[in-house]
């Protein structure tokens, strides 16, 4: 156990956590301490925007863990994110109490509207935060476990696995769109008031959620580090590179995949749960297959199999999305598609790979170019 904990803390990880918390601290201070008119004052919408990016970064991290290290390309991870989000949303709905439009203390507004006479059985317990917190991890984890149990035992791999993960999230989307599922149908869950007694509109609560997101991301990062740097991590990498060889060494590949897939889904669930109070709504569109594919693009852009690359990719692509959907809304999807093609063709190992150099020890194309340019300059200087 000690070894597992120690392995989480390497130099790169410490630098990552330092930058993460340093930046968050500055953002929080500038929002809370500086007056609203100050040039360096960070508006509250920015705090929540960054908070949202951090939850996306955690989602990207969970995808990188299975895709980058174990070769499982999930195109349905948005489903686990959304399930965690719904679990949090259910708690937030129950927190509204009798402050809803219909003033019904027992039933959320949409249930009154749809003529529910009583709370569905699966809503019980969600008025308690600890219960919701367990469900945030348990529900996505259970779905991943059941899904993975069948898929990995039947040795479904590669593109076939990717396709059934798409089918999974699509099926969940259709189910959650139905009004009689009891999750608010089309409109989802919204109009949240407070979380653990803190007003969600309050600046302090927003900053608190930002810190919670950064902490979850930091913890998720440390867990991924500990897992991937252990012998377990070497085994899943071996599975990624030569699955049947790993089996002939005596490793039960299905169990190794199942464990990492379930862990990854739990992380995605936590990300979703932190996402919901910061954006104020959760609805079935979070299950859209395209959302899950977008996550894969973030990881590919950042550089898979590096962990921090996934975080960088998620933040950069989402920043671009925020900017472009505001400035030039009609080109965003083309830009995303173009980005994916560009990265696949020219940066197969993502931004991080292009900067760090290739895995076989040779310098990266960018570094190599810089070096040859520098050498050429040095030659000129001498002559």
């Amino acid at each position: 156990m000690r070894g597992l904990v120690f392995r989480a803390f390497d130099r790169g990880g410490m630098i990552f956590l330092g930058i993460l918390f340093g930046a968050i601290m500055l953002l929080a201070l500038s929002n809370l301490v500086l007056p609203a008119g100050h040039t360096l004052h960070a508006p509250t919408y920015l705090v929540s925007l960054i908070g949202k990016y951090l939850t996306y970064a955690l989602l990207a991290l969970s995808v990188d863990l299975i895709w980058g290290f174990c070769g499982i390309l999930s195109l349905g991870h948005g489903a686990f994110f959304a399930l965690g989000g719904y679990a949090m949303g259910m708690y937030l709905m129950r927190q509204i109490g009798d402050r809803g439009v219909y003033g019904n203390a027992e039933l959320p507004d949409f249930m009154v509207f749809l003529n529910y006479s009583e709370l569905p059985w699966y809503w019980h317990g969600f008025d308690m935060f600890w219960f919701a917190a367990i469900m945030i991890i348990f529900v996505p984890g259970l779905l991943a476990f059941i899904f993975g149990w069948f898929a990995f035992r039947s040795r479904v791999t590669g593109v076939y696995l990717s396709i059934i993960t798409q089918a999974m999230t699509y099926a969940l989307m259709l189910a959650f769109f139905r009004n009689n599922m009891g999750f608010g149908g089309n409109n989802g869950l919204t109009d949240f008031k407070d979380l653990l007694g803190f007003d969600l509109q309050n600046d302090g609560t927003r900053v608190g959620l930002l810190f919670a997101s950064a902490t979850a991301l930091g913890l998720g990062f440390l867990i991924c580090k500990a897992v991937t740097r252990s012998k377990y991590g070497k085994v899943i990498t071996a599975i990624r590179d030569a699955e049947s060889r790993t089996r002939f060494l005596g490793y039960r590949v299905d169990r190794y995949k199942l464990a990492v897939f379930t862990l990854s889904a739990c992380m995605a669930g936590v990300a979703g749960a932190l996402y919901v109070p910061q954006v104020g709504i959760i609805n079935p569109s979070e299950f859209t297959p395209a959302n899950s594919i977008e996550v894969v693009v973030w990881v590919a852009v950042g550089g898979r199999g590096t962990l921090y690359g996934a975080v960088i990719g998620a933040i950069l692509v989402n920043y671009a999305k925020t900017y472009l959907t505001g400035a030039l809304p009609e080109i965003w999807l083309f830009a995303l598609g173009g980005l994916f093609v560009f990265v696949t063709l020219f940066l197969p190992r993502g931004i991080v790979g292009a900067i760090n150099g290739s895995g076989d020890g040779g310098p990266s194309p960018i570094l190599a170019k810089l070096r040859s340019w520098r050498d050429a300059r040095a030659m000129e200087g001498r002559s």
Partner: protein
Amino acid sequence: MNASLNTSMADSILYLDGVNVSFDGFRALNDLSLVLDAGEMRAIIGPNGAGKTTMMDIITGKTRPDSGQVVFEGNVDLTKHDEAAIAELGIGRKFQKPTVFETQSVHDNLELALKADRSVRASLLWMLSNDANRRIDEILGITRLGDHANEIAGSLSHGQKQWLEIGMLLAQDPKLLLVDEPAAGMTDDETAETARLLKEIAESHSVVVVEHDMTFVRDLGVKVTVLHEGSVLAEGSLDSVSADKRVIEVYLGR
């Protein structure tokens, strides 16, 4: 029944009797029977399509036979187990094409192969002990890869990859090693070196070697089984099978 089957099943490490496998009507193994005594090294030769690799697939659980007995150590029915379970029972396999974990270091490759608890929990909590490190160093020495321990396995030469894979087999410490064409693509020096390596391994393990290279098989100096069209054509010393008319006809003569 083949004469060698008179050896009792109890003394054998590997016992195949009447094994049949067909793929879409093609009979890859045709009533194959073969017995390997504990501690024995056996060379298996035969033309392409004779069923050598299929036989390895049957033993290691990759393919299920249509009929016949496959028994390990006289009492374990291998047809009832999958690849991982069979590896845990103590059967290691080296593939025809060298298959090492290309993106990981030579040392990590050996660490992965090293005999240890294969459960998820154990691998999460695993710490490289001094004993384990010493064993890895020892294997690095035997396979002449000591200078390459921290290199990525993908950067090794073809011959070095073959040795690394043999090293991984050693690290697994199986009771029975199945080695598929270890000398394929090697230079003459490397081939001789590989034969030396295998003879050293055979001192403490049972080994089945599939090979095309006759010089190599001669270097090994062990009993030879000739496969043809999925069954045993001849068995004995290399000299005696080389003199066999049918063997010359289907294999050596061409």
